[in-house]
């Protein structure tokens, strides 16, 4: 049978984001794949060196736009480590609440984009409808729907208004009811199971070697969660365990990655409830945040997609000397050829959709 290279992208309904996947097919079976990034390279690291430290929070929001709050938070943690500033306790709790709500919104975005890839277009409408509830909730303290600029170096921008807890509780109860409905709809659907079970399998040791982190790693059965291992903000005081899933034959397949994200949504709601219950009173911003910083510092956080790490080098001026961003999707996309081989062309949307790509963060 003839072998040929097929280009999927940059304009392709499957590619969430702008990247090019060249697959080598022998008939319908994939024998090799070469992903190509760079269509969204905005040189954030270089222009970040031209802006002051506090101005870069507008750029970090736009790194992964589906999960903007977590990236700004990672940058703010790194900058706080560099400057020697610590956010007050109430700000840490607010950050935790807002981060977990953002994680739920990001996973709902993933669900709304993954299901149409498999042909289940109703899932898009359900995902968008539920995500709107959470975006409206996040708009209350921050003012923005998608890009917030809410987490600042030294705290958060403004306090949660009164009545936020009641609204959040109502929204979360609605989502729990609907998630039960979706689990019934998708998990018991024969077509969904056929497209997801045993597709895109990689083992846990392979995943660790290739640098895969986050839900993609936990769906292979590895209980590694940076909120527990390298804790920050209010997470040390909350009570939770990493959620894991495993595919039927060991390792991680598309179905276990789907179940992982749904289970993480439940876990996030539980964390939000705990944090809102335990929230102390106090200020939301540190007393004084210096403009200048020198030295080097890094901080890593559990982003919705994996391990986000920011490394900052300061030279004593008010602008960073070097800013390096680690994106979890960068290494996952580089490992994609390994778990695409052997499957059919029609499995490509399922596999590349199930790892939850966001190209904004890979192409800094």
């Amino acid at each position, binding site marked *: 049978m003839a072998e040929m290279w097929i280009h999927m992208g*940059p*304009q*392709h*309904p499957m590619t*969430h*984001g*702008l990247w090019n996947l060249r697959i080598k097919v022998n008939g319908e079976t994939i024998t090799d794949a070469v992903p190509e990034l*760079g*269509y*969204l*390279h*905005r*040189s*954030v690291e*270089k*222009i970040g060196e*031209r802006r002051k430290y506090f101005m870069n929070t*507008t*750029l970090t929001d*736009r790194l992964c*736009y*589906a999960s903007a709050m977590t990236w700004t938070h990672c940058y703010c943690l790194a900058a706080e480590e560099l400057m020697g500033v610590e956010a007050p306790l109430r700000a840490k709790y607010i950050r935790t609440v807002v981060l977990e709500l953002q994680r739920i919104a990001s996973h709902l*975005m993933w669900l*709304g*984009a993954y299901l149409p890839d498999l042909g289940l277009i109703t899932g*898009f*409408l359900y995902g*968008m*409808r539920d*995500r*709107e509830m959470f*975006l409206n909730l996040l708009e209350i303290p921050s003012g923005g*729907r*998608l*890009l917030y600029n809410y987490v600042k170096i030294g705290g958060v921008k403004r306090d949660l208004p009164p009545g936020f807890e009641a609204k959040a509780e109502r929204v979360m109860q609605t989502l729990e009811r609907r998630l039960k409905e979706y689990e019934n709809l998708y998990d018991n659907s024969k077509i969904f199971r056929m497209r997801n079970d045993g597709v895109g399998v990689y083992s846990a040791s392979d995943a660790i070697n290739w640098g895969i982190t986050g839900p993609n790693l936990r769906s292979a059965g590895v209980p590694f969660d940076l909120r527990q291992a390298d804790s920050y903000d209010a997470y040390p005081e909350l009570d939770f365990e990493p959620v894991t899933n495993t595919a039927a034959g060991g390792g991680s397949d598309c179905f276990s990655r789907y179940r992982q994200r749904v289970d993480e949504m439940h876990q996030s709601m539980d964390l939000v409830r705990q944090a809102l219950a335990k929230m102390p009173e106090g200020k939301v911003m540190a007393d004084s945040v210096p403009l200048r910083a020198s030295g080097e510092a890094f901080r890593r956080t559990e982003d919705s997609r994996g391990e986000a790490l920011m490394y900052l080098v300061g030279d004593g001026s008010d602008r960073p000397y070097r800013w390096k961003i680690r994106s979890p999707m960068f290494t996952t996309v580089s490992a994609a050829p390994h778990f695409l081989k052997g499957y059919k062309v029609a499995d490509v949307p399922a596999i590349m959709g199930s790892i939850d790509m966001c190209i*904004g963060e890979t192409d800094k």
Partner: protein
Amino acid sequence: MSRQQVRGNPRMRKGLGSRTSDPATMMEDPPSGDWLTLRSDQFLNWVDDAVYNIAEKTGIRDVVNRVTRPIFNWGLRYSPWPLHFGIMCCALEMGAAGGPDHDSERMGVVYRSSPRQCDILIVNGPVCEKLRPKLKTLYEQMADPKWVIAMGECAIGGGPYWDSYSVVAGADTFIPVDVYIPGCPVRPEALMHGFLTLQKKIREKEPGYFLRR
């Protein structure tokens, strides 16, 4: 094969289906009046002479346009089909505009995956140097009439990345833009307003389409 060895009737007209491989006879113009066997560029020239120029000169084209323009314009206005193309954050808001909360499908907006089937190209993010030739190719693949919506600050003038070495300063540096929607990111309500503005522009500015070259 030379001309004498052609199968069938040797007096048969030679067009694109001709069996000759002799270059001297391949590109020869067919006898005049032979519109059945013309090449596509010859056919267009024939149409020009026989139909288009006559309709233009006698004014029939204007008369028919006056009747058909409202109808075609109504069709164009209420079925803007954008390309299923998302660059960055504004693409998520474009998706949210298609969701149940702000329903863009009630305006006739149906996202198509192939540029050949689309009317609108929504540029919803910063255009990098690597993407620019691909975006130009997508724009050129779309058939007339087509419009471009520059959605968001990145497409209008580079946005927050105006001082980057790899971001083009706005989509209108290489393709003509019809509607600019400010915002960072553009709220779905603003995108709906952008679609309405485009509809107004189509109503006012699009000429008739009868026999238009």
